[in-house]
């Protein structure tokens, strides 16, 4: 009679795999090192672009340095965790929804406005000698007036204010996309018991959260940071190459603003999606957070003349304050300090993460 070892040796196609040997097995180590090296080089280039700001000893300079470290750390975390397959699959699940594409297209309208607006302004600048020019099929306009409107009203001048306005407009689209994404990516895992599938594999609840968070972060950046960087590059190409050298700090600011949006919105979305799970209630909660709270804060500060710190209950405004600081744009006097806003956002993130960990630990893995 054949022994168990004989059976193992002679068995069919199911037994020709070795048990998993670890993340450094085989050629994965070289890939990992290459990835980290590329990320480091990217950061060095990023800081070289914003070199003038590195020489000052202000807090902003240190913030940018810290931001760079977080950027590198996040990617290192991705490489060393099992989060990547979860993130990739979550992205695919969302990209397969037609509704998502419709909402995403809607969210990109403001990007298109800025993108083609810059072209229109560049063209208007070349027509400054003329009294009036024909603008498409819309009629005639004074090019000097056109340039004034684009530059002073819409702020399409490639300055920090351009990108701040862009982020401000874009976040409304982000809100709708995230409400949809949250229920599909996280709510469904709890409703259909898929969480036990993930957590019974050799991954931790952190890997799971990171994977889902990466998928959400990818969408936030697809709608905010990446279009903003495209606008930055477009402006440099339209204006002059010097723009890239003199406005390197803007690029860092854009990445910083995108990163703060990513971190805050991702943790908030994960927590709310785990809490309510279904799409419609999630949209209701999300709407309350980002429409009701701003209205309330305005009523308290502008109508009732309470302390401007009441604006801190508006998370959009908090993100706007932190983003403005990162882009080095001055704030109005009726706004609270950006440090206070940063503190509120940090508190919200910590609360959300604590709630997430508690909820995921409580899931019954084996029924």
């Amino acid at each position, binding site marked *: 009679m054949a022994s168990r070892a004989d059976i*193992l040796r002679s068995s069919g196609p199911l037994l020709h795999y070795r*048990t*998993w040997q670890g*993340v450094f097995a085989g050629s994965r180590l070289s890939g990992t090192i290459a990835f980290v090296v590329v990320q480091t080089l990217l950061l060095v280039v990023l800081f070289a672009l914003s070199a003038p700001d590195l020489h000052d000893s202000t807090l902003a300079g240190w913030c940018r340095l810290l931001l760079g470290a977080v950027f590198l750390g996040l990617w290192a975390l991705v490489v060393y965790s099992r989060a990547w397959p979860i993130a990739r699959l979550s992205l695919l699940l969302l990209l397969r929804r037609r509704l998502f594409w419709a909402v995403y297209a809607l969210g990109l309208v403001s990007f298109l406005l800025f993108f083609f607006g810059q072209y229109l302004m560049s063209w208007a600048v070349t027509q400054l000698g003329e009294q009036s020019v024909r603008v498409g099929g819309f009629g005639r306009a004074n090019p000097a007036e056109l340039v004034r409107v684009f530059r002073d009203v819409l702020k399409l001048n490639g300055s920090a204010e351009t990108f701040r306005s862009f982020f401000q407009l874009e976040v409304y689209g982000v809100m709708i996309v995230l409400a949809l994404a949250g229920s599909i990516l996280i709510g469904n895992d709890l409703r*259909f018991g*898929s969480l036990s599938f993930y957590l019974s594999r050799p991954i931790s609840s952190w890997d799971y959260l990171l994977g889902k968070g990466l998928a959400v972060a990818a969408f936030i950046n697809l709608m905010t940071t990446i279009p903003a960087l495209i606008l930055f590059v477009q402006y440099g190409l339209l204006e002059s190459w010097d723009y890239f050298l003199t406005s390197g700090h803007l690029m860092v600011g854009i990445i910083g603003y995108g990163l703060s949006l990513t971190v805050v919105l991702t943790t908030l979305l994960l927590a709310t999606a785990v809490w309510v799970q279904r799409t419609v209630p999630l949209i209701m909660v999300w709407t309350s957070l980002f429409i009701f709270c701003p209205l309330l804060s305005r009523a308290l500060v502008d109508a009732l003349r309470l302390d401007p710190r009441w604006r801190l209950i508006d998370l959009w405004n908090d993100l706007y304050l932190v983003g403005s600081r990162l882009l080095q744009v001055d704030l109005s006097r009726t706004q609270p300090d950006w440090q206070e806003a940063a503190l509120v956002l940090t508190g919200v993130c910590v609360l959300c993460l604590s709630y997430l960990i508690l909820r995921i630990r409580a899931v019954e893995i*084996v029924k």
Partner: protein
Amino acid sequence: MSESAAAPLLLELDGICRDYGSFRALSNISLRLPPGRIGLLGPNGAGKSSLLKILLGLLPPSAGTGKLLGRDIASARAELRRLIGYMPEADGLIPGLPGVEYVALSGELYGMSYLEARRRAHEVLSHLGLEEARYRPLEQYSLGMKQRLKLAAALVHDPPVLLLDEPTSGLDPAGRDSMLDLLANLGRDLGKSLILCTHLLGDVQRVCETVLILHRGRLLRQGSVAELCASRQDRYCLQIQGDPSAFREELLLEGVQIVQENERGWWRVAVPAGWSNRAFFALASNHGVTLTALMRDDETLEDLFHRVLQEADQSSRLDSERSHGIPR
């Protein structure tokens, strides 16, 4: 050195306890099992799930030590999950995902590269008869296909141990047969060790070599299915021809209990301690009865299970009465 001596034991548990607050879910579980097909039986609340969680490394034991394939269950928890393919009772499927991507994701979470996991997913799905359905979204799978898909996700990294929680739950008889054949084949032909957790005793009898019976957190019985079913030494089946009345009276006088009889002359009897089989023939001869058959009356697994549980309940009731000083 023989192979059995060289190979590590599948499971070594020594005094494992698990408490949830003041409630003790597992109490002093100690066992040593070689690789093989093991059935874990017990009614609801017996502690099966807690034991599974401990084996999967998802829950640390409150007391005691244990090893699975030589790895410590308290310290090597992530490594244990790599060695085990776990098939949960709950669906745990991801809506919108095709079968092949679901299995490949499982492979990636076990540490395979993307390409390796995809290739392996195709192989496993073909092996389990899901080749045709692999690109269909999971919502379109029948219950039987879902069960096989979950098995494929557990098998994708080729683990030496499979932990199966109610693998035939909700299946029709044909689907159940097919799943049990598949499991028996994995154990017998491919050398996988199985820990099958179920309340369907027939499943354990068909697939498993060894059975563990848990009740109220205690391990009541452990051993091979055949041995446990034959453990009751006092039962016999007889077939008699002729007038049985005098023979019956004589048996009763000797302390033999007649448990069951039918009109075709088959009797099931329980004999007293020290009984010799020759006495049946001697008594039959004395009373003009012919014994045409005499055999040991082994229990089915179901009989054994119910008897063991009943004995445990009686014993705990007696203990409780004694501790409260209630006279019988």
